[in-house]
């Protein structure tokens, strides 16, 4: 017994144990860290208008993000999770979806929400502590962000089941973080999505940090994409700060799901530039050099360089865009600050479609009458 204890689980192939199955995880990237093209880019990357529209959305998101942090710091917003550095993957997968698809995300996915049509005012309203901010005018079927980690993955599976049962060519897109891949919710969902061949795509936003726990302490797995393998679905790893890869590869996964090909996982490697939330101080657990190194791979700067290299973008364009974004954000802030708080009695108004008679007395106590 003692002799076998230290030995490899996989015995010498010459003696016993043919290969039962083999797997590989590919890494995909089109735009490297210095904004140079790696290999042949997809068609949309040659389209000036498309690439500029992606850049504009990423810039708007970042402008919004800085403003939100400032609002929190001055007591005008609740706890807020910065999405700085994650704009490419968010805008990437959101722009690969159709309006009819349904998105389910963790918090920190403001880039995707903004692309999908959630207004800046609605986002501020939610993070400012008002449920009405989740009653998006569009997209009506998207879920509000899930704060409990990975708990939206089972919902995505249910929504994909609904699409499949109704034979609709729609896809549920579920974004979650690196920490979420350690949770049972995620495994259970990947497993069911695989065995039922559901039209769902799991986007793992690997920003290297689950609050204070770095990626290398989260799992011994070499990649997070390989967690697909146990569920019998494909997994791929991409450079999540490369907008071209982000949009192209998530798009392939989404269209594959739409065409009946089933679920898959896309692991997007990015970096959380800011604190976990405004209630966190990352300097307690992460060295500043790591963050400055990550800024060198900033997705916005990379796309800006790509546009500039093609003479699609000038300094004047940039200045104009920044001014526009600031104006939009300021307008949203003004709107948000002008919204009166909900009435205390409204705590009861959406608990049930109709408040049970047995609870009316409680509502009256809060209705101030």
């Amino acid at each position: 017994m003692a002799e076998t204890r230290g030995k490899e689980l996989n015995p010498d192939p010459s003696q016993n144990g043919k290969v039962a199955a083999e797997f590989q995880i590919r890494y995909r990237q089109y735009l490297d860290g210095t904004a140079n093209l790696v290999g042949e880019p997809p068609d949309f990357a040659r389209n000036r208008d498309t690439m500029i529209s992606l850049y504009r959305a990423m810039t708007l998101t970042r402008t919004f993000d800085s403003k939100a942090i400032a609002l929190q710091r001055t007591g005008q917003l609740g706890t807020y999770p910065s999405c700085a550095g994650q704009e490419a993957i968010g805008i990437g997968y959101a722009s690969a979806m159709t309006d009819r698809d349904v998105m389910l995300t963790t918090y920190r996915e403001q880039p995707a929400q903004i692309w999908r049509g959630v207004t800046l005012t609605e986002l501020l309203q939610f993070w400012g502590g008002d449920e009405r901010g989740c009653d998006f005018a569009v997209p009506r079927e998207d879920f509000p962000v899930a704060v409990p980690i990975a708990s939206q993955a089972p919902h995505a599976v249910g929504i994909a089941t609904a699409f499949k049962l109704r034979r609709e060519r729609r896809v549920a897109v579920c974004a979650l973080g690196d920490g979420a891949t350690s949770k049972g919710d995620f495994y259970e969902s990947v497993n069911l999505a695989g065995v039922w061949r559901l039209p769902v795509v799991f986007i793992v936003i690997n920003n290297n940090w689950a609050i204070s726990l770095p990626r290398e302490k989260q799992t011994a797995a070499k990649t997070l994409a390989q967690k697909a393998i146990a569920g019998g679905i494909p997994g791929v790893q991409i450079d999540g700060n490369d907008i071209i890869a982000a949009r192209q590869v998530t798009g392939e996964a989404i269209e594959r799901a739409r065409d009946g090909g089933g679920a898959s996982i896309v692991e997007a490697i990015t970096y959380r530039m800011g604190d976990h939330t405004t209630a966190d101080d990352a300097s307690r657990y992460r060295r500043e050099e790591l963050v400055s190194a990550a800024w060198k791979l900033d997705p916005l700067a990379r796309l800006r360089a790509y546009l500039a290299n093609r003479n699609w973008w000038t300094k004047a364009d940039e200045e104009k865009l920044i001014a526009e974004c600031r104006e939009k954000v300021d307008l949203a802030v003004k709107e948000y600050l002008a919204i009166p708080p909900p009435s205390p009695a409204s705590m009861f108004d959406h608990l049930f479609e109709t408040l049970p008679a047995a609870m009316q007395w409680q509502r009256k106590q809060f209705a101030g009458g």
Partner: protein
Amino acid sequence: MVGAIAMALGRAMQDDARVILVGEDIGANGGVFRATDGLLERFGEERVMDTPLAETVLAGMSVGLAAQGFRPVTEFQFMGFIYPALDQVINHAGRLRNRTRGRLSCPLVFRAPMGAGIHAPEHHSESTEALFAHIPGIRVVIPSSPARAYGLLLSSIADPDPVMFFEPTRLYRAQKEEVEDNGQGLPLDVCYVLREGTDITLVTWGAVVKETLSAAQQLAAEGISAEVIDVATVSPIDFDTILSSVEKTGRLVIIHEAPRNCGIGAEIAARVAERGLLFLQAPVERVTAPDAVVPLLRLEKAYMPDEMRIMEAARRVVNYS
């Protein structure tokens, strides 16, 4: 009762194409208690869906299906195995409507067998309904007879909000009651007065309704007229019915199979203290399971409230001076 449940499920599926069943072993096997017996043959695999063995995704996918307009009725094999789904019940099913201000809703039913008394293995005899009654945004319904199982289940499925529907296993095969498959639901959120009386109010629900009714009958022979109320929807509680009964009788005993501490009996007693103290002619008593882990089968009879304990409590309360 299990036949009435299968009948209600079949009826709901026949009347409403949005109703689908999900759960473990509910298809070819017809459910571990046969509550879905024959439904796979009748409605096919797309409406009776066997899932992998994973309660979190079972609950969470039901939330997704419900948000998309389906009416999932999800079977958890036992109340003791529903706990992995608590995150979904509390954080999502119970608040999806609220957190989206009504944009999305969650019309689903989570069914689970509950309670002791069938000599089942460990973890198969739970009565933890109070855990669920504490959660805002969901209803908790417990039938006590085949007819009420049929009617309350139909209403729970038709309800636009999430319902936890707990079925006492002890009643599954206990009563022979003809239930007509008339498609008629019974109202939720109301107590059912099963027996009228003037001397004492016995408030209960679930399997122990049987022992309470039997105790009431024997008390009548002693000259004690007991009113028996089946709460049925244990959250939210129709407290007005209980209070008017206590106003009439002046005496109250609450009987439940669940442990005593923070049980639903405590809530009922507290509300009587708040609103009906001056009606009372004697202290309120509770007949409950002890605050102990449900024992394995050799002790389960000692654990559950029985007729003797109910009658003793009723006599003490009636003879209080």
